[in-house]
Each structure stands twice: as C-alpha cells, then as structure tokens.
C-alpha cells in the first residue's frame, strides 16, 4: 500500500454545524475511489477540501507524502470535472483543453497539438473547433474530462459528472471514464449519490453519512458485508430484521416477529447482543409450501412489480416489510393479496452489529 493520497482527521465546521467529523482515508496511486452518500453527507465538502476550494477546520491532506493543505487551488495540480462541466463558453473545445497548458506556459502550437491528442483520447477527434454550446451534454462531458487530464494532474476529481445525462449516455460515459482512467493510470476520486454508478465503476467505495465515513471497501464487500445498517439500506435493496443473538456458538438469533434464525456470519458475536439481520431480496425464494432445510416465513403479498426478466414482490411478514426478487418465470405462482412462504438458507443472512 503506497498511500498516495492521505486524508488525516479532516474536520469541517460551519459555526455550530459539523459538516465533516474526523475523516481519514488513504488512497493508492492509480486507484478509482468513489465517494457515495446522500446529499449533505459530506462527500462534496471532502472533495472541495481536497481541491482547495474549502479550507478544513482541522486535519491535513497529503499527496505523495507532501502536505497540500496550505496550497491555493491553482498550485495543487489537481484536475476537476465539475457537475455542470464548467467549460468556458467563449473558448472552443480545443482552446478549453489547451487552457491549463497555456497557464503552464506551454507554447500555443505545442499546446494545441497536445489538446487535440487529448480530445482524440476521449473520442472527440474533429470536434475541437466547436464551442461548448454546439456540443451535446455527453460531448461537453468529454471535453471537461480532457481538460482536467491534459496537464497530467496528480489527482483527478469528478464531482457528480454524470448527473445531467440521460440513462443510456450515462452508462456509456461510465464505461468511457473507466477506460480513460485505466489507460492513464490517474488516481481518481469520483463523487456520486448514485449507488449503481458507484458499484460499476469503483475499485473502492467510501460511504459517507452525516459528515463521517461509514465504510470504505471494494464494491462487493460493501454489498455483501455492509458494516452498518445505513450502508446496507443505502446500497442495493435490503431486508433488515432486528434480532438478538441467542447463541453465538450455535450461530442462532431470535427475531421477535420472525422467530429463530440460523446465520453463517463469522464475526465475533456475543450472546444477547442486539443486531440487525440483512437478507438481500435476491437471496430469498418464494414458494407455496415450506421448504426443508431453509428458514421459512409466511408472507402476505401486497404488490408485485414486474420487470419482465424479474419481478419484485413486496409483502409483509408479521409487521416486517419484506422485498423478494424473483425470476420473471417464477412470479406466476402467486397473486397480490395471497399468502405464501418465503425462505432462505443461513448463508443468505448477514449480521450487522451497528
């Protein structure tokens, strides 16, 4: 681990309001890290502190072992793609990309050539002479990306750059950004509130909530082994069941409404500990009758949402709302208002202690 970017104990307060509370994080060189969280969770504030537009109330930011906390934004050599791209409307695409080189004293001839090369890399060969308003949203996005990368920044920051694009373009840009980031090997921080974007693009996801980091882990770890019920609820769909550990040795828990549970988690737990049990909707099966060797619970079906290839069955087991994801073909066995059984194996149950 090289700890290329190091945030240490970053705190940010506005009067009595604490926007960031003791945030520490290290990022490896070349890593693609996503800051994920609801609005107001502190992810953008952290980004702005790294960029130098906000001053931290406490803590330090280091890149490659050098503290940059005291540097002005223009001295930090960080490439940023803003939410609305922030392209200069009076400059053409290629002039926009040339701008950071111009500021670094690169000659016009050489700078424009470099800018053209960068535009080709982002797939905009031949669009250099156009002004931003003559480009589509996706193209503007690419120009902004090229501009943030052309001066070989020590860090690339992306502030919800895909928010304004429609779904198809968004997916296309996700792949593009990933491709360009890999080919240049630039360390990247990507801010988003879109969890599927975070899942598909990141080497690591950092989940923010209320000015603090809830969990920082690779996408699949975040999904399958969330540390807190907030992370479990925020990423993907989840069924969260309050329970008490009855025997840590036998790996059993008890829910007041759903009864005894077996779980497979290897965490160290103690008898009588209050926990939350997480079961993802796709790990639950739906059946007419109880199935052997599985935990069976009776559920009243309230709503069925069909997506064609799959369906979401929403119902209630006792007083606990449950979501079950079933294959499209399986959904024909039940109707709304009917009672059926939902069941799962101990492997599907993940214990969250916070």
């Amino acid at each position: 681990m090289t700890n290329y970017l190091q945030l240490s104990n970053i705190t940010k307060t506005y009067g009595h309001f604490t926007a960031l509370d003791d945030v520490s994080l290290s990022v490896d060189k070349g890593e693609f890290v996503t800051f994920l969280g609801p609005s107001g969770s502190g992810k953008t504030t952290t980004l702005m502190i790294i960029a130098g537009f906000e001053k931290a109330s406490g803590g330090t930011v280091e890149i490659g072992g050098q503290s940059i906390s005291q540097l002005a934004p223009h001295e930090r050599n960080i490439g940023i793609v803003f939410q609305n791209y922030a392209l200069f409307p009076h400059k053409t695409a290629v002039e926009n990309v040339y701008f950071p080189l111009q500021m670094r004293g690169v000659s016009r001839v050489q700078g424009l050539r470099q800018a053209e090369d960068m535009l080709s890399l982002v797939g905009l060969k031949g669009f250099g002479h156009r002004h931003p308003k003559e480009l589509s949203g996706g193209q503007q996005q690419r120009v902004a990306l090229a501009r943030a990368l052309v001066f070989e920044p020590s860090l690339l920051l992306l502030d919800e750059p895909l928010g304004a694009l429609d779904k198809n373009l968004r997916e296309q840009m996700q792949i593009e950004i990933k491709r360009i980031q890999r080919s240049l090997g630039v360390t990247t921080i990507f801010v988003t509130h879109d969890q599927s974007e975070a899942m598909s693009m990141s080497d690591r996801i950092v989940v923010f909530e209320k000015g603090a980091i809830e969990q920082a882990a690779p996408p699949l770890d975040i999904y399958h082994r969330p540390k807190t019920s907030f992370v479990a609820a925020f990423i993907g769909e989840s069924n969260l069941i309050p329970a008490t550990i009855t025997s840590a040795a036998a790996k059993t828990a008890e829910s007041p409404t759903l009864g005894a549970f077996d779980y497979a988690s290897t965490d160290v737990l103690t008898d009588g500990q209050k926990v939350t049990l997480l079961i993802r909707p796709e790990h639950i099966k739906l059946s007419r009758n109880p199935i052997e060797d599985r935990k069976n619970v009776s559920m009243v079906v309230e709503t069925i949402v069909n997506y064609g290839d799959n369906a979401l069955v929403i119902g209630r087991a006792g007083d606990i709302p449950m979501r079950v994801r079933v294959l499209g073909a399986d959904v024909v066995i039940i109707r709304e208002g009917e009672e059926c059984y939902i069941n799962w194996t101990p492997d599907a149950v993940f214990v969250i202690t916070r």
Partner: protein
Amino acid sequence: MGMSLSKLTEKTNIWPWLLLAPLGIYMLIFFVVPLAEVAIMSFTEPKVSLANYQKVLTGALYQRVFLNTFMTAAFVTLCCLLVGYPLAYLMAHSKPRTAMLILLLVTMSFWTSFLVRTYSWMVLLGNNGPLIAFLQMMGVDKPPQLLFTRFSSTLAMVHILAPYMIMNIYTVMKKIDPALIRSAESLGARGWSLFRHVYLPLTAPGIANGSVLVFVICLGFYVTPVLLGSPREQMIAGLIGHQIEEFLAFGLGSAMAIILLVVTLIILTIYHRRFGLDKLWG
C-alpha cells in the same frame, strides 16, 4: 377543453391588438408623424432638393461637429467603462451589505433628474464654486477655467451615463457561474491570467451592451453639453437646436437630425447582428 383551446388560437384574435391600440395611436401621433415631418422637411425646406444634406455632409463646420460628437461619445464611453467596470465588480463580488450600499448610490444617482445633476456640476465647478475656492486656498493663483469647457461637459456626461454602463456590466457579472472561476483556478489560472483569459471575456457582453447604450445616448445628448460645455466645442444635438432656435433653418436642422438618426440605427444594427438587441436591457 382541447377543442375550445385550439379554436381560441386558430381564430384571429382582435383583443391583443385592441390592447395595443392606445399606445400605438400615441406613438403614431407623437413619434411617427413628427419624425416623418422632420424627414420630409430635411428634403423640402426651404425648397425641394438635397441641398441640406449636401451642406451638412460637405461643410467644414458640420463635419467638425459630427467628428467632435463621435469623439466625445467615444471618450465618454471609455471613461464610463473605466469607472464603471471596477465599481460593477465591487457590487457583484463584495459582501451583500457593501454591494447594497454601492447599488443604492448608483441607482440614487441614476434616479436623480439629469438636469439637477447638470446644475449641481455647474455649482461645483463654477468660478465661485467649492473646487475653485479649494484650489485658491491651496495657493493656485490663477485657477484654471473648469466650467464651460470640454472637461466639465465630459465629466458631467460620464457621471450621468455611468449607471447605464455599471448596471449592464453588473448584471452580466452576477450571472457568471462561480464554477467557471473555480474551474479556471483548478486548471492553474490566477490573478491577471484568470482575469484576462476567463473573467474579462465572460463579462464582454456586458461591456458591449453598456458601451453601445452609453455611446448612442451620448451621440444625441443635448442639455448637458449645451449647459456645461464650451461654446466652441459643440455637439451635434446642440448644433441642431441652434439651427432651429436661432436661424430657423428647419431644413438644415432636420437633415442633421436624420443623419444622426441613420448613423445611430447603423450602429444598433451592427450591434444587433453581433449580439442581439434584446440583450441591451439585461
């Protein structure tokens, strides 16, 4: 519902025209008709010919006054820009209280009748005024003549027209997306280079708007140059007034007015082609 709506739009609706009628009639009687009369007079007084235009376009005096008018208007515009740009910047980027105060001062000066403002300059710059008294107190034996000079009329015109410049530039500055400035900073720009390559070009539309407005108003300025300016440095509007009031040369005066109008329209057309006239008022 949909039916009645489409009916409403399909039928030629007379109401909007009726509502426009009072204004239209007013403009017709008090603007179009007199203007047409001026245009006709320029060709018919004292007899039907192009003599008036020939005289205005070839006569040395008239050429000099026209040139003087354009030079003055250009100079006043430049001064307004030099005074107005920093002030607009302060308004757009200082704390709300300070910005409010400057805005208040600018608009107050804007709302005060320009006749009143012209007279106050006469008081301030006159031979018995405070400025001359101050200079004498400082030991200047022969204080320079301030009033009735090109200096006094230019100063007053800049004062009167600066708010147009300030408000136009201010509006544009206020609309600049702060992300653009941040993004320029993140790309390595600061200070002068940030201003020259990003801020100034972004405010250029405001500069163009303000300049055209000030320049065009200044071209036809009458009261201030007549009351404050040097009699030897007349501007075109003053000369037109002179022709009509003193020499009763209606034809000549009208020809000059029409030429001024045409030149103004040409400037506005060029501006419209480049920026769009609708943006002139913010």
